[in-house]
């Protein structure tokens, strides 16, 4: 049980590291956001679960479950607000981008209203 918890913690920390690496290496802000929020959310959830399993003697499992729920609730909200702001202030996409659905939709909506 404790060994399994430690290994899950290690996997979670590797996800955290890969998320940070993606944050560093990705070409434009939307890709960076995707690496920096999705991977780190999964990584931190695994990290917390593993910590609770590896230290079963402490009476903190309930608090860690609540903490995981908080992360699941709040993290998508902040990244959604950021992505929306980045779209509205017109940060350019990377050169490799092939499709921008949101911009096409907005154009179509304007055409429909006119």
């Amino acid at each position, binding site marked *: 049980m404790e060994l399994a918890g430690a290994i899950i913690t290690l996997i979670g920390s590797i996800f955290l590291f890969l998320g940070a690496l993606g944050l560093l290496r990705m070409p434009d802000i939307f890709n960076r956001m995707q690496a920096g929020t999705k991977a780190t959310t999964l990584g931190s959830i695994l990290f917390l679960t593993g910590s609770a399993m590896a230290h079963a003697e402490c009476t903190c499992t309930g608090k860690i479950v609540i903490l995981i729920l908080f992360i699941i*609730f*709040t993290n998508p*909200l902040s990244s*959604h*607000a950021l992505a*929306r702001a980045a779209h*509205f202030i017109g940060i350019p996409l990377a050169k490799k981008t092939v499709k921008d659905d949101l911009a096409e939709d907005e154009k179509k909506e304007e055409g429909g209203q006119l």
Partner: protein
Amino acid sequence: MVKKIFIVIILGFFAVMLLPLAKDFTPFQELSPVAEKYVEDGPEELGSANLVTSVIVTYRGLDTLGEVAVLFIAAAGVGFFLRKEEKGDKTPKRGSSQILQSGTAFLFPLILAFGVYIFLHGHLTPGGGFQGGVVIASGMVLLLLSSASAKINENVLHLVESLSGASYVAIGILGLVLATGFLDNRFLDLGEFGTLLSAGAIPLIYSFIGLKVGAELVGIVNNMQKDQS
């Protein structure tokens, strides 16, 4: 360029001056007599599991009262200087998204409940009145961010602030009358060590501090938000 060289020289001078201080630093190995008395007698005298709490609320309770008063003066100053005459030329703001509004409607009560948890458990966890008040104020800030039309009822805010401040002083005087000194927490039953209903009046005092700090910070943020024409 000359300016930068000058800055580097000054920084180097400071480094040479401060280096002996860092080199000769030896951490304190033993407590001072006052701290020793707090550590030895604090837990059984006041019944609080968190020693910092018992020092802040009871032994040095008068200082905390002064800090809360300072915060009140700061809030009053912000309210005084940002009092706004209506200009009328409001620049249009971008509304927030549906996701943010729904998320706020879900998270706002959760944040309020968490703030109450923090200041009620001030004698058991590292939290306390100030932290709980800040968490409540953060929830209110989220409400203001999510919808531009959100209004905070200032009368309720002022009522909560005044009542909690008055109750805080009243509890202090109650300690003076029923127990040994101002803000003494032992006029209530000390209870079982380490449970929620223990440490005498400390949870009560921290609740009032939390409500007062929360109301003051919300007042500051509300005044600043009204000032953004």
